[in-house]
């Protein structure tokens, strides 16, 4: 099975440096990072708090432009693409603090990325239900608002939302931080299946050694640099 998947270099960081500039000081959060992310693999980015993990993935996600260097998606630099379309169609981000839409129900939250992609409503609903089920949320959750969910449930809705868009790159910022080991496992299995069977590229920021162990490749960061 694995051999059939194209080991295409989906996402390439080329000497990426990112600096937060304020009036008083400049923080070099990511320094000179070069890396090639391939389809079909699960990556774990680990490192101490504040070492620049979130900054790196938001630069990969096209939310930031690198201060120096470039991020290439399928050979095109994020500088030279329509980043709106890139974020809508090619990349999905799961945030540390879920960031669900508070006014939308669970189902509507998961439908949202598909609405942006203008998927037919019927297909979208069945995909949404399927993705929710894949993270362990059954039909009884569909009509609830995020405020009526526990932290772990919200996290899983956020994961389902990221999966629903069908983007081939999934960036997850501590997706299992609020999950018990059972649900954490479920999510990790889903990521692995997507990568290994469907050729997704999954990049997970994590502090959890078990998640790191289960990933294909572990990337260690220290004060903005990749050290392995």
């Amino acid at each position: 099975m694995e051999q059939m998947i194209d080991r295409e270099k989906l996402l390439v960081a080329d000497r990426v440096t990112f600096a937060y500039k304020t009036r008083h000081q400049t923080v070099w959060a990511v320094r000179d990072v070069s890396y090639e992310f391939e389809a079909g693999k699960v990556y774990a980015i680990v490192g101490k708090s504040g070492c620049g993990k979130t900054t790196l993935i938001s630069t990969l996600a096209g939310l930031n432009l690198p201060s120096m260097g470039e991020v290439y998606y399928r050979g095109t630099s994020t500088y030279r693409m329509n980043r709106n379309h890139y974020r809508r169609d090619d990349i999905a981000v799961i945030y540390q603090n879920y960031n669900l839409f508070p006014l939308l129900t669970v189902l509507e939250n998961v439908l949202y990325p598909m609405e942006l992609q203008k998927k037919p409503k019927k297909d979208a609903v069945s995909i949404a239900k399927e993705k929710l089920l894949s993270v362990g949320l059954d039909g009884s959750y569909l009509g609830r608002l995020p405020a009526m969910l526990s932290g772990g449930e919200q996290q899983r809705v956020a994961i389902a939302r990221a999966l629903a868009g069908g983007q081939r790159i999934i960036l997850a910022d501590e997706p299992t931080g609020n999950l018990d080991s059972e649900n954490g496992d479920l999510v990790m299995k889903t990521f692995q299946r997507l990568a290994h069977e469907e050729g997704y590229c999954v990049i997970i920021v994590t502090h959890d050694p078990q998640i790191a162990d289960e990933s294909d490749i572990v990337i260690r960061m220290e004060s903005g640099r990749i050290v392995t």
Partner: protein
Amino acid sequence: MILKYILRSLRSRLWEALSLAATVFLCLVLLLAIHSTIAQRQAELDGVYQNTEIACVVTDATGSTRNGLSIPAEYLSLFREGGALYDHVKGLVCHATASFLLLGEERIPLHLLNTPDAVPLFAETPITYLDGYGDADLVGEDAVAIISENLMPYIAADGSLTLSLPPRGERSIVVRVIGAYSSDTSAIYLSLDAGRKLLEGSVNKVTPSALSFCVADNRKLNETKMALGEYFIAADPINQGSSRFGLWMDDASFVDTVMVLERSIALFVLFRTVLWVLALCVCFLVIFLLIRRRRTELAVMYSMGCSSVLLYGQVLCEVAICFAIGALVALFAAAAAKVSVGGEAVRVVGILLGGCLIGGVGSVTAVTSGDIMKILKGKE
């Protein structure tokens, strides 16, 4: 979906929506009130400009008319078409004398006038016009005459009167009698312009003795004063002995009224400007704060690749709906309070709506161009 989102957003953030509507309402009511006040004052001022007659009377240099003036006839042509004062004045009232005429052996004093107002006598003994004639005929092309009743017997059967010119009566003129007044002393009053033409080349010198008029356009009062200043001096008792003609102008109360109105309008306009700045600032601030409260939502939409049209459209729609509610109530309130709401109101509402939408665009841009990650990380 987007509509559903907007409606849900409005419903679940009802108080925020209402506070924006209330802000709009308050701003609009105040703005409409001041706009209509200014419009009222302006109409009042226009009325004063249009309806005030500023009377001007030609006098001697000291301001007196008591001794009878002998104004050179050339002055009359200043007020005629093509004359330097023609555009500046209206309602010329002129009484002129032209020595005498011979009626048989009798020497009859001759006057010229262009309206009965020119002669104080006619205020006491009004003119009786023949059928079909009136004051207007005195300014026409025809040589018409008003005579004292004791001259009636001289009128021919066809209503005309034949007069001979002094000194010996070798030339005669024919005029049509259109009216008479009762008096013991004989006199003939000819229409001014036609009369002057008839007398051309005769020894009868036409000498205006009373001349008055009104300012044609009160808005050009200063120009008119300048133009008049070329020919007349301001009448003043200290000008004793000057041979020039003076002009007495009844403009003091007009100038005062205009000044008071203009001052109050200027004050209101200043107030209006301040109010506009305040209203726009308050609306901006309210919108900015409301949008800031939902910056996480906007940041998430942005990070998911939501198009700008959708992102801005959604927020602006909500702003516009709140605005519409506030504006409608304000317009109803204004109509109920009988504050005139015409095209001006549409403009006021339009400008404020524009301001609010710009505020909305600015606030959304502030979110999307700021540090999105910081918002998404929930650190802000």
